[in-house]
């Protein structure tokens, strides 16, 4: 073919461009890791890019020994586990009920839910509501307001809709009730979509900071994202004060920030290679709708 030379040149270029993209995507991660192992002097001289300079793990020790960091870290784990559990329960029962064609008012109820995706109450009315419910400084302010993601619910609903009716009918014939069918027949057949949803919700909770920022003001309730946010915002976190001789607080914190970031990303990075395929299939499921 005549154009094959041009196409070959394009292909070489293409690989090059994609490699540049990959490099740019990964660079910030590598940079953070490099800084976390470097000594502050080299960081503030602008000499740490991809390779650690003045190797030190002292800062890791400082952060790991900071009691507040672990309290906050534990809070993140608790919020993630409880929040994901609540979200899964609500989303599953909602999606299952809406997936049944015999449900009277199904269309209206779906629209009732979908409308909230396009119009919401706004920051202030939400804030007032949460505080008036007495959720201030409690875990409920973190795990309840965002419990159902309508988007996730729709993905799950279309998954349930595509299940063969015969199985459920047979179970009903055998005298199984709706709860039994959902628990013993439907859920075991929905492992793929359930795993995806758990991951979506869990990552959301793990990464969330704003509700905690709004509704919590006791340090020992903060998730680790707020710990980090306060560091970034320049507030002196527990670790920062512990490590400095009061003179170069800002300089020290560049290194501490990196360490905290690495420790916060670590769980996600560890599970990422294993769960990545679920995320992708989840998005694909969503696109079917």
């Amino acid at each position, binding site marked *: 073919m005549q154009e094959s030379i041009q196409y070959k040149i394009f292909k070489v270029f293409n690989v090059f461009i994609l490699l540049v993209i990959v490099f740019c995507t990964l660079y910030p991660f590598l940079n953070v890791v490099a800084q976390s192992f470097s000594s502050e002097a080299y960081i503030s001289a602008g000499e740490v890019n991809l390779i650690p300079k003045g190797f030190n793990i002292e800062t890791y020790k400082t952060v790991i020994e900071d009691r507040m960091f672990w309290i906050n870290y534990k809070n993140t784990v608790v919020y993630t586990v409880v929040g994901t559990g609540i979200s899964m329960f609500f989303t599953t*029962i909602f999606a299952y009920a809406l997936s049944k064609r015999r449900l009277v008012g199904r269309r209206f109820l779906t629209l009732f839910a979908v409308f909230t995706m396009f*119009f919401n109450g706004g920051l202030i009315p939400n804030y007032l509501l949460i505080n008036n419910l007495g959720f201030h400084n409690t875990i409920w302010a973190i795990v309840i307001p965002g419990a159902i993601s309508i988007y996730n619910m729709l993905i799950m609903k279309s998954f349930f809709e595509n299940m063969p009716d015969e199985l459920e009918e047979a179970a009903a014939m055998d005298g199984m009730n*709706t709860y039994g069918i959902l628990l013993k027949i439907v859920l075991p057949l929905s492992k793929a979509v359930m795993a995806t949803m758990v991951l979506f919700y869990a990552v959301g909770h793990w990464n969330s900071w704003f509700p905690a920022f709004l509704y919590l003001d006791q340090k020992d309730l903060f998730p680790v994202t707020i710990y980090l946010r306060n560091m970034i915002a320049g507030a002196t976190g527990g670790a920062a004060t512990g490590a400095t001789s009061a003179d170069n607080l800002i300089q020290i914190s560049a290194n501490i920030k990196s360490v905290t970031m690495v420790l916060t990303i670590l769980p996600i990075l560890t599970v990422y290679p294993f769960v990545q395929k679920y995320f992708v299939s989840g998005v694909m499921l969503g696109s079917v709708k």
Partner: protein
Amino acid sequence: MAGIDKARNAHVFTEVKMRKLTRLRTVIRKDWQLYSLLLLPLIYLVIFKYGPMIGNVIAFRRFVPGGHLFGEEWVGFHYFKMFINDPTFWKVFTNTLMLGGLTLLICFPMPIIFALLLNEIKAKKFKKFVQTASYLPHFLSIVIVAGMILQLTALNGSINVIVEFFTGEKINFIQQAEWFRTIYITSDIWQGMGWGAILYLAALTTIDDSLYEAAKIDGANRWKQTLHITIPGILPTIITLLILNIGSFLAVGFEKILLIYNPLTYETSDVISTYLYRVGLESSNFSYATAIGLFESIIGLVLILTANGISRKLTERSLW
């Protein structure tokens, strides 16, 4: 006569109504377990989604902190007039339009281009490697992203190493208003490009291979094939995502901006949502902030309805 008719009509009417009610009752009695599943989710929606919508009423009523949840007295459009006469509001409105517009113009096409480039790669392992790397930023907390942005753009950060090499000077990116938009858009591309490409890549796999074969026989080169087969093939996906993006046009990355902006960059970085955050939660001017928020939400709703309507007319594709 008319009186009898009316009476009979009323009778028939109530009978129909009664019959409907009894049918509903039997359905619910037979299937009460299914309906019971709806109970909690509906209570949730009413309280946590529709509740705040009703709470918007304080945009029309004077709210006093510590006072009644729905305000003290009606003030009509007082708070709306307030922001229309507020020069800061118009500044943040312009900033929001700028950031939203740039996002739509620059960040929206990026995943499409990326997906098209990736689609030309035949080596499976390399393709997977590129994809895996490109999704990664999507899974980071926005707090981490903000941390990385601040670190890279710092005076001693990596970007300044390059800048200094070429110009001999360093730029304090994060404290200069003219750099804010560049930082915002670049980081948005970084966060979303790979993840955004997934849907397009999925759409690409559904294109019939025989179309390409036919085009090849007709002498179309790879570029022509892309133009006439590939792009039309993913157009429905593009349109769907475009409608969604137009709908959230004004909802620019509130959390990210809140984390990386500072008074020095307000001139370009302050947007409607950050302004209403400061007015509402830092200055406790709840009614005023609610009015701004309601205005923003209504524009969002109108935009998505319009985009959806236009798309339905022109392309026969719509979200609902």
